[in-house]
């Protein structure tokens, strides 16, 4: 059946901000969908509040709405665009839930929009755990025994029969939000309480625990002719109990006989049929009892999921692309296999390699968080690697994750290892459990004992034993000969690991390896194990005999990606890399992408001319370049777009004789090295906060005394604001140095003067050596002291004056010149007492590049890539890549105003304080864009959390003394708007003096009153409060604030923790009440800006 002719326009909903459990895999799937639908000649209308996504690039849709993904807003867009159909299965749970809401509130019917790709009943059947279990039973398969509960009473009734431990799982949530194991009654009460809260249908499922069973996933696709294929099987190395998103997983499944696998496949197919997903992809999870093979169906996701992205990258079968085609009427046999071109998509990929995925966690940023891995997903990113055997893939994946500790290493003496301690620790899954397993096995723990402790399949444990055994051989050998070295490399050992074992440096091992002519070959991901020729150069390295890299005739540019998502380095950097690839391909170069993040667009096999799915380590990158140099001319490597990861490789690559395109390693050093950068600033006489390096407490004390408290202290050897703290006194300084960090001559501590009440400003600019293009000036909402990545900001700057912007322009240009930037530069300023301090400069694409590009309708990353290859800003202006005149800091009148807001993961880490600081904690961001600041800010808030702006109800206020002044007007305004104000005594007093009646509420520390007056924490837990305004007080009552904020997170009540934030939120609430928020597409805004610019010329 060919494509439906009745569809002319389709709306695609994205997944919104990057949050734990819903990351850029949905940008990958959504981008694929948009590409396909456009190619099919359909009008594509896209809604996604996340500006960092590729999909929201104007060229991927006909109308791109960067607006909050709420039923109300999406309905407005529907009313305006009148699409024929809505495709909801590619934007994760967010899109699915929004589509369901639009169905139930009648909007889809009103505007007769057809849901394609999944129908409401099917979604219900798949997502509602109760109905799903009925289906599983109907087809004669098994689910875990369970009971659906809507109240805590029902919960306790049910557990009597199921027994402890019991699993609590809410319906209609993603990433296991609100779920967990309860081992006793108290735990059950808390988890089930939160679960009922998390579920949009206040419904939780209590379930018999099957901890320790083998866990599997199948990715299936079905078309309207009822053709079904299983695209990929994934086996979780971490057994049942650890969320698949947090598990180390392998594809294909490795420990099932054909009979067991086919049984699983049969059940999977019957499930997808019975649920009625009639076109598209779905993901089904299974558990298998290792003792007797008993199989249990865990759940299904009737949509493209995180695992489908993984499966697509693992197999080369583009699930989202094909799902989009199926949705508009094609059948699997009508769709050609992209990779072989000749064969159809109606087959099942077969792998002749092994794929391993390793999650990346961020617990170091949330010290108070519970770091045990459970049914509730906690990882913030992942890396994938491929090899020709499991050991090779596993070790590559472990070094792809870019955490030193994750790479297998070997203590000096086996006797140093406390095996029994390790066995006890590994029984509780945490980040790094596999390393405990490896060391324990190495030290002599029996395979059985490790299996008992972890329930990790013995097959995998034996593979780790093999790695250990090779490590011993490498260490023991008196000479590292070719056979031994080859063996080690064949099993994934990095030069650095071998070096560690031999007590030499990695360079020596590399030299020896090259001398012996031992280099990896590059195999191809082709979906068919070489049965047919592959037309797409999608490669991975392996120590094998035959390479498949073919000769090139065009000059090539290597682009280094940003590796696994982590807090501080996420999708924004992938955006820049993809843009570089797109523009350089147009400019006639061949682009070669190296990256290891399966969630991204950059690792889609048709984003670049060639894709190498490889770890971003010096060794792996050098080998790829060597292989490509053998295939044709390689101009050099672009290191400035993938964030800190490639930036850190630049010098070593240059030392190895590889040309670095754009900003040179020397220039990078000039910006990154505190001392060198200090000289740059001095030369340009630009002020920076006074600072000093301390190698002992006394030095630190002296420096602090000299520059004056408060000071900002941080270890000098970490990035991303790690371990940064603001200390207000000498005691606090002592405290910090004790707990937070070690201090010694080897590990000095940076002590900066902390600029109080300073206005922070972020700038992204392009520099070509002579001319600067100021991409945009962002004014932060929160004051300096809150990490740029966590604070909201506006572009154009909401309050900065012409002269200030002029100073920023001059300072930025001076820095660009002084540092010697060729391409992108990001500078952070702090404006304090009319002095413009420079906080730092990053000689690379920054987190805000996509935001700036979209807010000003200028593709900064593309321009940067072209500059790196020698074009000048003048050329780019002439070529129309940059505007003919003007820049992002003097946008023409009538341009829209855009606000970026950060999205924080506190909901995932209960008990963690939500107070923001100099250490970045956000996982993602949203953009609100409109004609005025208030409306744009309101949209940003709504995009970040749908209940961020209550229109009425109770506001609780408790301000630190230093903030009391700035609260008066906004709080007064809230009262005028009809909000009921509650406050703690001190705050209430001040308000009263200004004629604001506030009901005094007891602090938690005051306890329940004589006549049972509840404390504020009780009120919050009882949901009596709609908005919380609470800025951190001095140490004494910090604990009160902490209790308030964590209770707010537990109940999902918006809480504002900064004074400037308050002012903005009140404006936002006014805008929301006024309801005068327009919906315009980026294309419309771009037209407006360009028209205005043209008029100005």
């Amino acid at each position, binding site marked *: 059946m060919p494509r439906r002719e009745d569809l002319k326009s389709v709306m695609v909903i994205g997944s919104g901000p990057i949050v734990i459990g819903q990351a850029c895999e949905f940008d990958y799937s959504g981008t694929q969908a948009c590409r396909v639908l456009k190619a099919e000649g359909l009008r594509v209308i896209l809604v996604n509040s996340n500006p960092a996504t590729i999909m929201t690039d104007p060229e991927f849709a006909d109308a791109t709405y960067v607006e909050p993904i709420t039923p109300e807003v999406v309905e407005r867009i529907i009313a305006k665009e009148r699409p024929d159909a809505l495709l909801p299965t590619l934007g994760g749970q967010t899109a699915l839930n929004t589509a369901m809401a639009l169905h139930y509130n009648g909007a889809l019917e009103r505007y007769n929009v057809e849901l394609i790709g999944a129908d409401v009943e099917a979604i219900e059947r798949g997502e509602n755990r109760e109905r799903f279990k009925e289906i599983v039973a109907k087809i004669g398969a098994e689910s875990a025994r369970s009971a659906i509960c809507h109240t805590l009473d029902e919960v306790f009734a049910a557990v009597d029969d199921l027994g402890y431990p019991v699993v609590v799982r809410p319906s209609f949530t993603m990433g296991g939000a609100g779920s967990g194991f309860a081992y006793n009654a108290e735990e059950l009460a808390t988890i089930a309480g939160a679960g009922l809260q998390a579920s949009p249908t206040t419904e939780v499922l209590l379930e018999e625990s099957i901890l320790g069973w083998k866990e599997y996933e199948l990715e299936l696709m079905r078309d309207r002719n009822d053709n079904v294929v299983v695209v990929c099987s994934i086996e979780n190395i971490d057994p049942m109990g650890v969320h698949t998103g947090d598990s180390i997983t392998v594809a294909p499944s490795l420990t099932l006989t054909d009979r067991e696998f086919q049984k699983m496949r049969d059940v999977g197919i019957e499930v997808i049929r019975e649920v009625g997903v009639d076109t598209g992809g779905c993901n089904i999870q299974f558990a298998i009892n290792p003792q007797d093979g008993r199989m249990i169906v865990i759940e299904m996701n009737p949509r493209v999921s995180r695992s489908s992205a993984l499966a697509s990258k693992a197999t080369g079968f583009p699930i989202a692309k094909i799902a989009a085609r199926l949705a508009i009427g094609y059948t699997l046999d009508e769709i050609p296999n992209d990779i072989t071109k000749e064969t159809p998509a*109606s087959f*099942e990929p077969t792998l002749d390699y092994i794929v391993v995925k390793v999650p990346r966690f961020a617990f170091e940023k949330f010290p108070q968080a519970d770091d045990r891995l459970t049914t509730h997903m906690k990882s913030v990113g992942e890396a994938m690697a491929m090899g020709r055997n499991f050991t090779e893939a596993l070790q590559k994946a472990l070094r792809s994750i870019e955490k030193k500790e994750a790479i297998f290493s070997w203590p000096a003496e086996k006797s140093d290892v406390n095996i029994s301690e390790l066995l006890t620790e590994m029984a509780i899954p945490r980040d790094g459990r596999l390393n405990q397993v490896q060391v324990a096995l190495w030290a002599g723990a029996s395979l059985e004992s490790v299996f008992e402790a972890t329930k990790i399949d013995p097959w995998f444990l034996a593979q780790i*034993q093999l790695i250990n055994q090779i490590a011993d051989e490498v260490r023991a050998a008196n000479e590292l000969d070719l056979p031994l070295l080859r063996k080690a490399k064949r099993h994934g050992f990095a030069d650095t690991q071998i070096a560690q074992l031999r007590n030499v440096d990695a360079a020596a091992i590399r030299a020896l390896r090259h001398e012996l002519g031992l280099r990896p070959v590059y195999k191809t991901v082709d979906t068919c*194990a070489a*049965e047919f020729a592959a037309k797409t150069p999608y490669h991975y390295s392996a120590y094998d005999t035959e390479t498949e890299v073919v000769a090139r005739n065009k000059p090539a540019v290597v682009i280094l990606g940003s590796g696994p998502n982590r807090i501080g380095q996420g999708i924004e950097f992938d955006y820049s890399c993809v843009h570089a690839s797109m523009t350089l391909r147009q400019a006639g170069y061949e682009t070669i992408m190296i990256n290891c993040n399966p969630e991204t667009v950059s690792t889609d096999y048709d984003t670049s001319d060639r894709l190498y799915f490889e770890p971003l380590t010096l060794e792996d990158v050098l080998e790829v370049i060597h292989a490509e140099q053998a295939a044709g001319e390689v101009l050099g490597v672009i290191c400035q777009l993938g964030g800190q990861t490639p930036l850190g490789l630049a010098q070593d690559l240059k030392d190895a004789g590889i040309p670095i395109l754009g900003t040179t390693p020397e220039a990078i050093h000039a910006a990154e090295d505190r001392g060198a950068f200090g000289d740059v600033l001095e030369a340009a006489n630009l002020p920076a906060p006074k600072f000093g390096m301390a190698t002992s407490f006394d030095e630190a004390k002296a420096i602090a005394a000299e520059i004056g408290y408060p000071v900002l202290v941080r270890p000098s050897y970490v990035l991303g604001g790690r371990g940064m703290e603001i200390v207000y006194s000498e005691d606090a300084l002592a405290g910090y140095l004790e707990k937070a960090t070690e201090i010694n001559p080897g590990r000095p501590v940076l002590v900066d003067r902390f600029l109080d009440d300073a206005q922070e400003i972020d700038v992204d600019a392009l520099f070509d050596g002579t001319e600067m293009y100021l991409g945009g000036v962002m004014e932060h909402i929160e004051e300096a002291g809150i990490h740029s990545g966590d604070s909201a900001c506006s572009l154009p700057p909401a309050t900065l004056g012409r002269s200030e912007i002029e100073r920023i322009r001059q300072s930025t240009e001076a820095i660009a010149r002084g540092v010697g930037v060729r391409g992108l530069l990001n500078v952070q300023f702090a404006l304090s007492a009319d002095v413009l301090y420079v906080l730092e400069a990053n000689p690379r694409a920054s987190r805000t590049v996509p935001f700036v590009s979209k807010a000003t309708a200028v593709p900064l990353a593309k321009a940067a890539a072209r500059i790196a290859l020698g074009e000048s800003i003048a050329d780019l202006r002439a070529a129309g890549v940059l505007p003919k005149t003007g820049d992002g800091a003097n946008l023409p009148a009538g341009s829209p105003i855009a606000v970026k807001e950060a999205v924080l993961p506190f909901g995932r880490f209960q008990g963690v304080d939500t107070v923001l600081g100099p250490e970045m904690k956000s996982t993602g961001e949203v953009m609100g864009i409109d004609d005025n600041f208030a409306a744009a800010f309101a949209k940003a808030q709504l995009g970040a959390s749908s209940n961020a702006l209550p229109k009425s109800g109770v506001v609780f206020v408790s301000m630190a003394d230093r903030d009391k002044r700035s609260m008066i007007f906004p709080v007064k305004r809230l009262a005028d708007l009809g909000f009921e104000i509650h406050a703690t005594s001190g705050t209430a007093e001040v308000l009263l003096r200004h004629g604001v009646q506030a009901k005094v509420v007891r602090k938690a520390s005051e306890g329940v009153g004589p006549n049972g007056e509840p404390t504020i924490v009780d009120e919050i837990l009882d949901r009596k409060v709609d908005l919380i305004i609470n800025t951190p007080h001095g140490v004494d009552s910090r604990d009160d604030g902490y209790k308030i904020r964590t209770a707010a997170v537990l109940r999902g009540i918006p809480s504002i923790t900064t004074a400037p934030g308050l002012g903005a939120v009140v404006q936002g609430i006014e805008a929301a009440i006024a309801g005068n928020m327009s919906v315009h597409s980026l294309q419309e805004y771009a037209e407006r800006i360009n028209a205005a610019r043209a008029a100005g010329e």
Partner: protein
Amino acid sequence: MHKPAVMVFEDGRVFHGVEFGAVGTTFGEAVFSTGMSGYQETLTDPSYHRQVVIMTAPHIGNTGMNSVDGESEKIWVSGFVVREPSLVVSNWRAETSLDEELKAAGVVGIAEVDTRAITRHLRETGAMRVGIFSGEAATASESELLQQVLASPKMQGADLTADVTTPVSYVVPAVGEKRYQIAAVDLGIKDMTPEMMAQRGIEVHVVPANISAEELLEIGVDGVFFSNGPGDPGTANHARDLAQAVLTAKRPFFGICFGNQILGRALGFGTYKLKYGHRGINQPVQDRKTGKVEVTAHNHGFAVDAPLTGESQTDFGRVVVSHVCLNDDVVEGLECLDVPAFSVQYHPEAAAGPHDSAYLFDRFVELMDGAR
């Protein structure tokens, strides 16, 4: 364990690896199988007689061997090529390990070779003879080894039925009530086939390939089945004659794999050798009647040469191609319109492989019902 072994192809290409399974020398037709699961079924499938099987999946042997999943009494492959033999056996049903079984069966293998390079080589140059040499044998010079390979028999023109067929008839009783009795001509039959029939109330009499037509029709009261098997269908003249007798008697006829080629020949079509064959469990086959696509298990190096579209006139009336492989348009099934006969080139009994095509056994039952 890690003693050297070498693999020499008839075109002179050489791959070095290590000993695996039995030590010694073996020859056969080199073929690759892309199934990621089911090595035990593959090893014990008589269709692989005289073939050296290269597994494209890197890790083989993980789930060991058990006494249930085998498709016949013994391992039939003449050689086995894998990249990574399993270090341990991990499966609740496992009884022995792959390596033990290969040694016990005296099957010479080789491991740690670049199986993907070998597969690409076969894809580009076509199936060919190969020799595996380990232990003493591996010490000879490559040119010497090549001579040995060139001296070994070819698959083209090989009549292997006699090697694989059962010497005496045996009966697989119907599960539950017996509703039909058929004769299954054993050209190298897999155990799963009679089992699938038995589950449908069929009592299956598996008979030797050299059976006479009279006897065959006598036993095959309700129908006759022609099984899969090794060798060149062009040589299987007796089987062809038997098939023609069944068609003349208008006795319900069902054939699988080799049986499909036999039906093809009985109808007067030719057969030919594919460049490198279909061996795997992920092949898309379209049922021309319903337009539906089945993911199917394949193991064939030869195919029937019949017109893909329209009806062909034969001595037994009109015939259509009922199934085609969507990868390369190879004939995957035949259906007679004027006599009760049909066959498929692939494996509805799966083992190893997906169960999408099990419905074909029901078609056979319907055919027998219709004939009553």
